[in-house]
């Protein structure tokens, strides 16, 4: 694999140096045909390093972002998919129409797609997949399909879906894993043998190490450049860096140790790609429990945190400052960072006024890199303002899920909410661990989902502003999407705003 990096370096510099380097490296190059930019599609191999290996390949019964990250858009395709700007684009559905009451969707489907078990993809499979979400899925995400009243196959290539009421979020959700199209006779062993229509077919899974995806020879769309893409999983961010430095992998899919990027940035052998994500790092408050049920206390926290400095220290300055639960890639984004500027004096005064200095606030964070890192900064910042803070690390996922998430036994926590368009999920439901119950926000959210796309934007903006003013939480920053790759690898997904690590566009220049 050492040779792959070597080859990549060559591709970047197609000059006289090529000749010399090529002869020097030929002895270690087992696959000379893959040299430079002229690699024949299908013979080339790429290894992508990722964190967090999936525990199962079945996202119908297992939560966890790692499964759709590997499989969605790569092995499974959806009717519609998200592009890099967050717009909904055709996939298995070549076009679609929405009725004037915005309740009936008619999709025209491609007639060329085939599942990797040989079956052609038809509207019947789409109906089967949609019905199966409602019937057999066990993860909570299935609720996004509740709004569907009926799905039927008009013909082999036409699908009609009727909703109970208009919903802006439904089509959007169809770009996520719940929109994955599966074959009725391809679901026997979802946990280990996924069957889809995508550009890659599932190869092998070395548990504890890697998943191999092979180019699908019968893919109906443009064939992928790489014959094989290996997703290799690392627990440790440093090990991930080392693997790239020594050529074991070609791409770091998501950098978890941003401080280490410096060693790649000055190096001509690598490219560093910085994009954006949906991951709002939220300093969440338990909104119903004293003292965090006091607006002034929550405001004091928001004033006490120096967000710019926080992002600089705990995430090496990468990321985007946000003022509410909306990333800039959403249509209803509005810059609200000015609502609570860093103001230590004001924070101190509010702490005084509320007498909160006599209470020790429990900042209970999950054992995740960003939370452990930022938790220390938040504690230090809050203590500057006069708060008393006990930092409490809870093992993620199990202990944190039970203590903070299920039992809401906490005052503050830090977690990145990475699901796309999750404002409603996090702040629209009083049962959620934030325990935030604001009728105004709930009404705006309901109107936004059933209204016209224009109304959606208006009401979402209103909801985002209300909850920020109300200091329902503090929004530390938006996680960046950081990718490091060998020079010459093209088509890497700059923004991580879908659930997928989209491998379909990858190539080598």
């Amino acid at each position, binding site marked *: 694999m050492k040779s792959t990096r070597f080859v990549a370096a060559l591709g970047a510099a197609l000059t006289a140096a090529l000749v010399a380097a090529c002869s020097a490296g030929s002895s270690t190059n087992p696959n000379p045909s893959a040299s430079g930019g002229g690699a024949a599609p299908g013979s080339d191999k790429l290894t992508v390093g990722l964190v967090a290996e999936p525990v199962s390949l079945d996202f119908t019964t297992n939560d966890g972002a790692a499964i759709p990250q590997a499989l969605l858009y790569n092995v499974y395709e959806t009717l519609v998919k998200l592009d890099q700007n967050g717009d909904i684009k055709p996939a298995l559905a070549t076009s679609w129409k929405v009725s004037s009451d915005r309740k009936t969707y008619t999709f025209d489907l491609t007639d060329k797609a085939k599942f990797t078990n040989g079956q052609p993809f038809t509207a019947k499979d789409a109906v089967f997949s949609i019905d199966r979400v409602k019937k057999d899925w066990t993860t909570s995400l299935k609720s996004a399909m509740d709004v569907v009243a009926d799905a039927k196959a008009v013909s082999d290539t036409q699908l009609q879906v009727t909703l109970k009421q208009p919903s802006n979020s439904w089509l959007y959700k169809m770009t996520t894993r719940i929109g994955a199209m599966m074959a009725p006779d391809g679901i026997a062993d979802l946990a280990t043998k996924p069957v889809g229509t995508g550009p890659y077919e599932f190869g092998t899974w070395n548990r504890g190490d890697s998943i191999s995806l092979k180019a699908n020879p019968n893919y109906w769309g443009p064939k992928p450049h790489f014959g094989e893409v290996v997703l290799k999983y690392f627990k440790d961010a440093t090990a991930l860096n080392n693997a790239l430095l020594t050529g074991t992998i070609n791409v770091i899919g998501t950098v978890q140790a941003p*401080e*280490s990027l410096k*060693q790649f940035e000055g190096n001509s052998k690598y490219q560093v790609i910085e994009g954006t994500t949906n991951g709002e790092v939220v300093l969440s408050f338990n909104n119903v429990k004293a003292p965090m049920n006091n607006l002034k206390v929550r405001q004091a926290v928001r004033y006490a945190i120096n967000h710019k400095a926080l992002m600089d220290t705990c995430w090496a300055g990468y990321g985007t400052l946000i003022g509410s639960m909306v990333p800039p890639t959403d249509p209803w984004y509005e810059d609200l960072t000015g609502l609570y500027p860093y103001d230590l004096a004001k924070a101190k005064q509010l702490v005084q006024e509320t007498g909160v200095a006599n209470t020790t606030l429990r900042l209970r964070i999950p054992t995740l890199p960003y939370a452990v890192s930022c938790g*220390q*900064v938040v*504690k230090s910042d809050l203590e500057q303002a006069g708060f008393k803070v006990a930092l*409490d690390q*809870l*093992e993620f996922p*199990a202990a944190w899920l039970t203590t903070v998430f299920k039992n809401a036994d906490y005052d503050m926590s830090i977690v990145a909410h990475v699901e796309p368009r999750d404002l409603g999920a996090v702040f629209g439901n009083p049962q959620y661990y934030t325990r935030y119950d604001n009728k105004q926000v709930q009404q705006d959210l309901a109107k936004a989902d059933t209204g016209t796309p224009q109304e959606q934007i208006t009401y979402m903006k209103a909801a985002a502003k209300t909850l920020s003013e109300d200091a329902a939480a503090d929004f530390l920053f938006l996680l960046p999407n950081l990718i490091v790759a060998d020079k010459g690898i093209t088509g890497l997904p700059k923004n991580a705003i879908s659930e997928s690590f989209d491998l379909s566009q990858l190539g080598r220049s």
Partner: protein
Amino acid sequence: MSRIDPGIGAAGEPLPVGGLPRRRAGASLLVGAVLVGLVVAAALVSFVWTPYDPTLVDASSRLQTMSARHLFGTDKFGRDVFSQILVGARTTLFVGIVAVGVAGVIAVPLGIVAAMAPRWFAEPLMRLLDLLLAFPALLLAIMFSAVYGGSTLVAMIAIGIASIPSFVRVVRSGSLQVLSTEYVLAARAAGRRPVAIGWRHVLPNVSSLVIVQASVAFAIAILAEAALSFLGYGTPPPVPSWGRMLQESQEMLFTAPRLAVFPGVAIAVAVLGFNLLGDGLRDRYDPKLEDRR
């Protein structure tokens, strides 16, 4: 042929036994004492003085190199590394004291009882301890952290429990030797009660063995804390800990290697210190060596 007692260390390292050459006994005791003294001094100093607040985050002074203002530089949070090393010494001593304390308080009486008790009691007891030996320290610590939440105290109680069997064996074999001496036989003949014999005669005579064992167990606990911190089960932030500093330094290994060097050296110094101290004490006290002097 005496069977060497196999203790178990953090990363599965048996505790080092075997004395250094007698001629150097004084030297290792001295070097060990100096190194341990260094750690203790750092911890004591940290109570009254550190150049900076070791947990104060300061974005404006992050990742500075070594200078007169920051002797060991600063980390990515802008915290003074020297101050953290000083306070970290406290954590290191705490780690050792808890682990050794747990092991000692349980194991010393148990070892004496195992030596004095009748066979029907002692035999099953020792078997039970053998069973405990089958649960490696690291395993116990990870399980304990999962149950009771990750904290230094929890992890070190686990390490302490894991080192009970080897402690008991050392105390028991020492006690057996003491019990066979003539003055104990005389005391028994005089009708002294077993508790009195154990308290008055056995305990004082095995105390040197206990001190040696404690010193070695101390070193093991320090290594264990480092290993656990590396895995994320050790001392939680923001309490400064050398193990966690080492772990945090990893992502900057190439851009700021000094962040790994200082805690790494500190750990090695402490472990080396306690091991040498143990060796030196053993050479002083070990009756077997005494005979031949």
